[in-house]
């Protein structure tokens, strides 16, 4: 039973990281139908910025954490305005290709600026754990989960209760009608990219202490995030978080209880889930089936 709860908390912690990156994907997909393949590399790049701000990772600094969120926000919005916005009238596929180009560029740029070597990234949480009823709950896991969920909650409050958040939701549902109400759609899309980039930065900074900082560190996480987003239904923000958490728990449980599933098999299993969902229930757990008239 103790093992079960420990696996569960680790799973939730991993899952919150997948979920936040999945949510970033969903935010952009919902607004523009573009799947942002650069989401992971944007997160990696901003994590390097945080690492640089923290004196090359000597100690974790919360001010640097928040400064990085700000930089990520501005950077994400700027990318939308400079790279994606000019492609507004092109097909969605063109924009997707542009995000793949961004992926490669950011990856190369990070390796060039900071070298491709493994770097140590400090964790904001101590390595000790709480013992509750014989169950060891690592402070890192709890802290990661808490930070990610707090960010998600803030984002939810923004979308639910502010006028700007409402306009962003309306713009995602029906951009044409929103513009007729005076909504500056293009700026809101930039804002959406900003939020997605900031959310990605959170996942990057939270995952870096365990996987170490390298230009490739987010590539596996991005695959998990894809699987999580598909599992939840690409259009559903709640689904992205739920999908991330269930994926995290599932992968850790499989690793713990099903012995053939070793660390090497985690990624294939995640991709397997992605495929099965696409085949069996393409709309995901929380998505709606979209019927298009042709």
């Amino acid at each position: 039973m103790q093992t079960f709860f420990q696996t569960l908390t680790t799973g939730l912690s991993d899952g919150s990281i997948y979920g936040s990156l999945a949510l970033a994907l969903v935010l952009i997909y919902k607004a523009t139908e573009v799947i942002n393949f650069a989401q992971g590399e944007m997160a990696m790049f901003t994590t390097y910025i945080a690492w640089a701000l923290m004196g090359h990772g000597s100690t974790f600094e919360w001010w640097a954490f928040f400064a990085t969120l700000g930089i990520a926000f501005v950077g994400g919005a700027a990318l939308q305005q400079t790279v994606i916005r000019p492609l507004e009238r092109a097909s969605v596929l063109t924009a997707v290709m542009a995000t793949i180009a961004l992926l490669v560029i950011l990856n190369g740029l990070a390796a060039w600026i900071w070298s491709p070597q493994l770097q140590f990234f400090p964790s904001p949480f101590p390595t000790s754990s709480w013992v509750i009823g014989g169950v060891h709950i690592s402070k890192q896991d709890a802290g990661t989960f808490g930070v990610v969920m707090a960010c998600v909650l803030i984002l939810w409050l923004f979308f639910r209760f502010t006028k700007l958040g409402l306009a962003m939701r309306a713009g995602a549902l029906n951009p044409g009608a929103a513009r007729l109400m005076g909504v500056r759609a293009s700026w809101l899309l930039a804002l959406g990219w900003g939020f997605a980039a900031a959310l990605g930065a959170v996942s990057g900074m939270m995952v870096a202490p365990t996987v170490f900082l390298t230009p490739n560190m987010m590539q596996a996480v991005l695959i998990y995030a894809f699987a999580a987003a598909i599992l939840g239904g690409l259009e559903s923000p709640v689904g992205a978080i739920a999908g991330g958490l269930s994926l995290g728990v599932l992968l850790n449980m499989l690793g713990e209880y099903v012995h053939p599933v070793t660390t090497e098999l985690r990624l294939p299993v995640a991709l397997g889930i992605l495929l099965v969902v696409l085949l069996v229930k393409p709309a995901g757990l929380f998505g709606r089936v979209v019927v298009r008239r042709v």
Partner: protein
Amino acid sequence: MPALLELSDVTARYGQVVALHGVSLTVEDGEIVALLGANGAGKTTTLRSVSGTVRRSGDVLLGGKRLARATPEVVARHGVAHVPEGRGIFAELTVWENLRMGGYIVRRPDFATVLGYFPWLQERRNQQAGTLSGGEQQMLALARAFLSRPRLLMLDEPSLGLAPLITREVFRVVTELNQKEGLAVLVVEQNAAVALAAAQRGYVLETGRIAVAGSAAELKSNDAVRTAYLGY
């Protein structure tokens, strides 16, 4: 004193297809003007050339100000509320969220006045707008448009898909908003009889050109208009 809305020699096209061939019309303050015509005559495109949702050339003036290059959001901020074909309701948002979107460009949206005209919206405020009936959605679209405190309201086929009784109710509210609030209205309608009953003036479009213009009474007695659009 310039007209509230003035189109002169407006041409609009979708790709290679020209939908408007030099349309000129005016709407004065406090007027209801009907825009009639068959399917494909360019009624919707005329409204779209005002709100900037179609590429157009020629002059579009609002209170003497040029709108010809303005984007939809800028036109809206100049005081034109366009209820488009299909009403443009945000189906997945609640009734209240739809209304808040109507007041998006206004610092303090006057919900009280609007609820005076549409009291039932109050009880339905938390309902998903997509679950309203067609007539209710049309009313919501009207209420939402009015919340932006427009100088000009443009309605595209408000009667589409509505029962005759509901259509009459929609036009009753439009007339009331016009008379009590001095709201100018440019309405596109297939149902010429209903539109001409509410309007003071009207235009008939045929294949992208103004074919007939005149007061509502003149149009009602015009033989060509009568046989083509009123059916008697």
